[in-house]
């Protein structure tokens, strides 16, 4: 409620409810778990030990990859062979979202703990991956069964744009 001293107007402000993510890191894992792309969208302060030692990216993505298959094996209510692994890990300061394509490529997004669903964002990342990486004749896909890191600047740009769109702060309330 805002009332101006010069006139007797009373304006009620309703804040606009904006679905906001806070995307911090994206990892792309190839079929056998190799980290083929990683991109950080936040300052190192938000990432704890990972911010201090960037080498931990490979460590962390391997952990998620292994835990994915264990989480599939311990499924209590479905045949483990027909289950899939985890889609979300929630901890006190971060949420980790895992999205697996039918070709067993995994997209991993680390966000703030209030983002509960990252499917739309990861679908867009998947689309960018198909358009910019898979359709690129110069990208080496599989050299002897080992996933090759993605060295395409346009892909990084595209992810940067997607992250910026989802990380937008809510628009200021209209007066």
């Amino acid at each position, binding site marked *: 409620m805002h009332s101006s001293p010069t006139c007797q107007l009373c304006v009620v402000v309703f804040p606009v409810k904006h679905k906001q993510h806070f995307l911090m890191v994206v990892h792309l894992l190839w079929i056998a778990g190799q980290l083929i792309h990683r991109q950080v969208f936040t300052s190192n302060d938000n990432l*704890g030990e990972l911010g201090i030692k960037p080498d931990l990216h490979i460590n962390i993505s391997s952990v998620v990859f292994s835990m994915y298959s264990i989480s599939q094996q311990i499924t*209590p*209510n479905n045949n483990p062979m027909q289950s899939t692994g985890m889609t979300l890990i929630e901890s*006190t300061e971060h949420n980790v979202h895992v999205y697996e394509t039918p070709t067993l490529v995994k997209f991993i997004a680390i966000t703030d703990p209030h983002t509960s669903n990252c499917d739309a964002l990861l679908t867009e990342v998947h689309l960018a991956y198909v358009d910019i990486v898979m359709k690129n004749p110069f990208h080496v896909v599989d050299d002897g069964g080992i996933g090759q890191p993605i060295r395409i600047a346009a892909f990084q740009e595209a992810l940067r744009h997607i992250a910026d769109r989802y990380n937008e702060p809510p628009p200021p309330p209209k007066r």
Partner: protein
Amino acid sequence: MTLYSFFVYNKFGDCIYHAEWNRSAPSLGEGEKSLVAGLVYTLQHFSSQLSSTNSGGLKSMTTPYYRLHYLETMTKYRLVLTTDISFDVNVGQQLLRNIFEQVIVEWVVKDPGYKHEEGNLAVSPFLPQKLKEFLTREKLLTAS
């Protein structure tokens, strides 16, 4: 709101209690306790690596089929509960805390014959019954 399984680990990683309800997939037997222990230990370590304030801890892990809730107490007891997906994370956290305070503390920790030692798996024979009573009161298990 279905419960599937429940594990309690002591600070040495031994599984001191295990219970199952409503389970439809075949159990992996003894190996499952170690798998779950390894899984939650790794995820907890992973969460604390990402955390900037030293208090980062795992709360839950969700798959399209089930949700796993985790609670680690200050005395390093680890409680793991798997449920269906409709079980909210915060409800699960609160439930684990209540189970710890009202069942584990009362019937395991306060048991004069129990010691929090490596390899000591002998817990009170009252524990399964008391846990079942607690969960029935909470309307999570149907009284049988």
